[in-house]
């Protein structure tokens, strides 16, 4: 409480996660795979007020391990939501002007229905009984949430990385329901290199003896497998320059009793991040969500420009020069598709050295672009 009194001017303050449940049997939601899933709960948060015309709603979508808590503070927490530097009063996603919604994804483990949820058919956690989901399924579930909130057309959908994929999927599936889109550090189609890194993460989880074909709920968890997956992930989110700046070759002070203990600071950091990940993430969710990302391909065999044909949605596309996981050429392909389809778009490549994480960390220039872009879109509504 005291913490956010200090930040009162800049932060949205205390927030709470909300839940929307739908698709109760026998009206389950049909998935991309043809399977049916229900009931489905989606976790979400909202910040700011919806205007009378319902034209100021912005949907924020998160990356692989993110959640619905994008801004403000949960009661008792010292750290704010994951995009608090972008969302709040007077910030880029200005909660004094806009009604900002952040939605979690199905398949996840942060309050939405996923493999750790109870399977109504067996009264036990789904585990690997949970059906494979796609980015399109995530978006189809979010549409139900937006319907529930009484919003017909979103002013904007925005997000980075996997959030950016959901943004692109929103435009592809529901172009008439989004005035504008901000895909950041993302891609139209997941590349072999990106799939490869995800596969290393999945193999690490499945190689952990505690994983036991996903049936670990209520027992010993595959902590180490998930930890290694997280370590690989973290490496890909940073850049050579940002790792040099953060760790250099500095060694840890305390002597290691074990020859291969964490000697360098970078090792200690990765191990700490990896080992703590189990506290907030379900290993099976990691498998399902990375698979959804790997299967993402909006090129549809013809190219994204065909998907965009006739689309009126305006785009702000942002990439980062030091991002080697989602290199700028992938964002340029989105920009090219917009050119080919005659879709109104801004493309900008920012200079941050933070790698893929830049959209979460170095936000000044990104905030400038988003602020002015949204202002223009809102004026046109």
């Amino acid at each position: 409480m005291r913490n956010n009194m200090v930040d009162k001017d800049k932060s949205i303050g205390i927030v709470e996660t909300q839940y929307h449940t739908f698709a109760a049997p026998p009206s389950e939601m049909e998935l991309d795979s043809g399977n049916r899933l229900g009931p489905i709960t989606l976790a979400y948060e909202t910040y700011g007020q919806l205007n009378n015309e319902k034209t100021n709603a912005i949907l924020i979508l998160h990356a692989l391990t993110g959640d619905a808590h994008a801004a403000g503070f949960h009661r008792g927490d010292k750290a704010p939501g994951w995009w608090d530097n972008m969302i709040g009063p007077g910030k880029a996603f200005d909660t004094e002007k806009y009604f900002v919604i952040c939605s979690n994804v199905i398949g996840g483990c942060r309050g939405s229905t996923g493999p750790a949820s109870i399977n109504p058919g067996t009264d036990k956690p789904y585990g690997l009984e949970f059906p494979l989901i796609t980015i399109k399924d995530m978006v189809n579930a979010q549409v139900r949430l937006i319907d529930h909130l009484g919003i017909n057309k979103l002013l904007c959908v925005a997000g980075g990385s996997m959030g950016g994929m959901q943004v692109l999927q929103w435009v592809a599936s529901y172009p008439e329901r989004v005035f504008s889109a901000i895909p950041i550090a993302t891609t139209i189609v997941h590349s072999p290199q990106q799939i490869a890194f995800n596969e290393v993460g999945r193999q690490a989880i499945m190689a952990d003896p505690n994983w036991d074909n996903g049936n670990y709920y209520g027992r010993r968890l595959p902590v180490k497998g998930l930890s290694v997956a997280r370590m690989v992930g973290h490496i890909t989110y940073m850049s050579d320059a940002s790792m040099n700046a953060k760790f250099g070759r500095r060694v840890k002070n305390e002597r290691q009793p074990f020859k291969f203990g964490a000697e360098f600071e970078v090792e200690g950091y990765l191990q700490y991040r990896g080992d703590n990940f189990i506290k907030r993430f379900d290993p099976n969710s990691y498998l399902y969500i990375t698979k959804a990302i790997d299967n993402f391909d909006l090129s549809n065999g013809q190219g994204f420009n065909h998907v965009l044909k006739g689309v009126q949605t305006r785009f702000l596309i942002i990439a980062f020069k030091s991002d080697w996981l989602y290199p700028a050429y992938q964002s340029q392909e989105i920009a090219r598709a917009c050119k080919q389809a005659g879709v109104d778009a801004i493309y900008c490549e920012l200079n941050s050295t933070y790698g893929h994480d830049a959209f979460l960390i170095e936000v000044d220039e990104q905030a400038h672009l988003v602020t002015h872009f949204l202002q223009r879109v809102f004026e046109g509504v």
Partner: protein
Amino acid sequence: MTKTSIDTISPDYRTILEIVGPASSVLDLGCGTGELLSLLVQEKNVKAQGIEIDDKAIFECVAKGLSVFHDDIETGLPEYGDKSFNYVILNQSLQQVKRPDKVLQEAFRVGSRVIVGIPNFAYISARFQIFFKGKVPVTPSLPFEWHNTPNLHFLSLLDFIDYCEKQKIVIEDSYFMNGQGKVRLFPNLFAQTGIFVLSGYMQ
């Protein structure tokens, strides 16, 4: 969008404003901070798109509410369909690209008309500076020193007219100006800038 007073705008912008038809579509190659494009939006209600390589300039374009691509104008055009714009503008940027001939070719492909603005290297003061001072000229339209100029090619208005003749490019209209306004007499001597409206290659 901050409004620019119509009275304070430079003669070359004013000329381009006169040329471009209302509500047309415009692609500005090397749009810089977007001053010309936002004037065109404000005064002529054009559908505007810019391409610019400098990121700081792009931030200013976006602040003006413009759509702009962070891209190189020598490689950024192939995606556009034939004749997808009424006008393609190359104002003070053609002399800054490595291959002006290629850029012009692409500009003719994607635009019905191409508007080219060039600084005149044979402006009288430039001639004086070379002849009497023995120095590379610095003029209002060529304001850079030899070591910091973005210009790769130096040409006079006559050079450009000759080039168009050789390449069989049709010059539909041409306008010559100095700091005060239009120049009608001996433009290659008295004009700092030339604006050419080109309609493509001769059939």
